[in-house]
């Protein structure tokens, strides 16, 4: 088991955003959490990466309890998060965005070959490497956000709504790249409102409703589930 989330609660002020959420991710999987806006999907990822704190329960990554570990150390332990809304540093150039991602990398010698890999996945970023990233298009920013996550060269990636705000063509492209990254050996936890796309590439999935996991299963089981179809797949 690469990641085990056990019965976590997360609060925003007095609002209980996650209520005893438990799930797990195996090495090499793509696991998807689907659910409506406000169900707690991003909250779940932020609790894992350490930006939010679980007030009860525990999060175990690769045998280490990371429930109370600060986010910069979690990034150094092997988890990369591509945040919702891309979260690129708009005041930095494309290249500088990739450079700061190396803050979590101990062996800086791997940076060069790794950057070549990122540029071969996203040739667009190479063309634009000296551009201020705030001036990139939405699709390019999403590629930069994923590319920046890959620069960290971590085995486990948390992707928060990678399809948000993208055109259908770009959505196809970004999901193709997620599959490619998974094939290169990375484990992926994917949070998506686009349930159809998410379940089409995931191995397993969970359904989150107002802070609680209500369903789980293989991606096929969830796709065929009448409730899931009705609520998330447009009938």
């Amino acid at each position, binding site marked *: 088991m690469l990641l085990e989330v056990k019965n976590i609660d997360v609060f925003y002020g007095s609002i209980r955003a996650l209520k005893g959420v438990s799930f797990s991710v195996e090495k090499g999987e793509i696991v998807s959490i689907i659910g409506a806006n406000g169900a707690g999907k991003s909250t779940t990822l932020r609790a894992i990466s350490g*930006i939010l704190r679980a007030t009860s329960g525990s999060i175990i990554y690769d045998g280490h309890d990371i429930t109370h570990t600060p*986010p910069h150390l979690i990034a150094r332990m092997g988890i990369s998060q591509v945040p919702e809304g891309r979260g690129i*540093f708009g005041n930095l150039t494309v290249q500088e965005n990739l450079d700061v991602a190396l803050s979590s990398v101990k062996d800086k010698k791997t940076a060069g070959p790794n950057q070549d890999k990122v540029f071969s996945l996203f040739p667009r970023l190479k063309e634009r490497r000296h551009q201020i990233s705030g001036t990139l298009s939405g699709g390019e920013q999403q590629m930069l956000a994923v590319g920046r996550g890959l620069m960290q060269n971590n085995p486990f990636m948390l992707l928060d709504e990678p399809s948000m705000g993208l055109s259908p063509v770009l959505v196809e492209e970004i999901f193709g790249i997620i599959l490619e990254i998974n094939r290169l050996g990375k484990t992926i936890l994917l949070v998506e409102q686009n349930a159809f796309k998410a379940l089409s590439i995931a191995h397993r999935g969970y359904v989150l409703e107002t802070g609680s996991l209500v369903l789980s299963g293989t991606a096929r089981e969830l796709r065929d589930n009448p409730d899931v179809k009705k609520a998330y797949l447009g009938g």
Partner: protein
Amino acid sequence: MGQFLQQLINGIQIGSIYALIALGYTMVYGIVRLINFAHADIFMVGAYMGFFLAPVMARVFGGAFIPTIIAAMLITGLLGFIMEKLAYRPLRYKSRLSALITALGVSLFLENFCALPFVFTPAFRKFPDLIVARNIPIPGNLGLNISNVLLLDVGVSVILMVLLFWFVNKTLIGKQMRAVAFDKPTASLMGINIDVVISTAFIVGPALAGAGGILYGTTYGMLASPFLGIWPGLKAFIAAVLGGIGNIPGAVLGAYIMGISEAFATSVNSNLGYGIAFAILIGILLVRPSGLLGKFMPEKV
């Protein structure tokens, strides 16, 4: 013509000192969104370090200027580091107003503590001659008065500013600083230790102010009292706001505008020099509330 050039040159000289102070205000604000009012007093401590250390440095190293300015920068950098750790870090996630009031408190503490009889005392001090002041003859008959102190002020400031630009733009920690200024949670996801970055800003900014203190002492030849930081600090703060607080080139631009307008205003009437700072501030804020190079940033919810 000669008079005009002379005031311009005087303005660039004083603007250079303001720039060194303004950079610290803007760097700290850019990263923690705090106006560090005690920054003016760090500048003062830097100037006093010159007073106390110069004789020692002269004895140990022969020459006084370079070792004194380096020592003053190290001490003020350390002071900034300690200040952040003790006074501001515990309030990091509290209301911003608490940190602002604390900054005022730290400022008053430093001023009054340094004025105690067993610290710097409130007495007037003659600043030691770190270099022998000399006029540099200028060919032509414009009647320009340019001293080696002026060249030193401008030269040292420019060197330090170039080093700062290199540091912020080219080194990993510099890029980390800009990333943290833009978005702290995402910066921490990159593996950036936010505490280290904030401490760095609180070392580098005060070190520059310390260098400014040495130049100030060398230029004016005297230290009035441990309250001497208030006015230069205020003007440098206004310069930072003028240029767009949080913006590093903006602070430099603002400082030179401030220094030059002050020089011209003072040449008309010596009291006008103080008023002009606020007049410029009000004028700019009416037209561009975010400052000359600042970007309007709506508060994130």
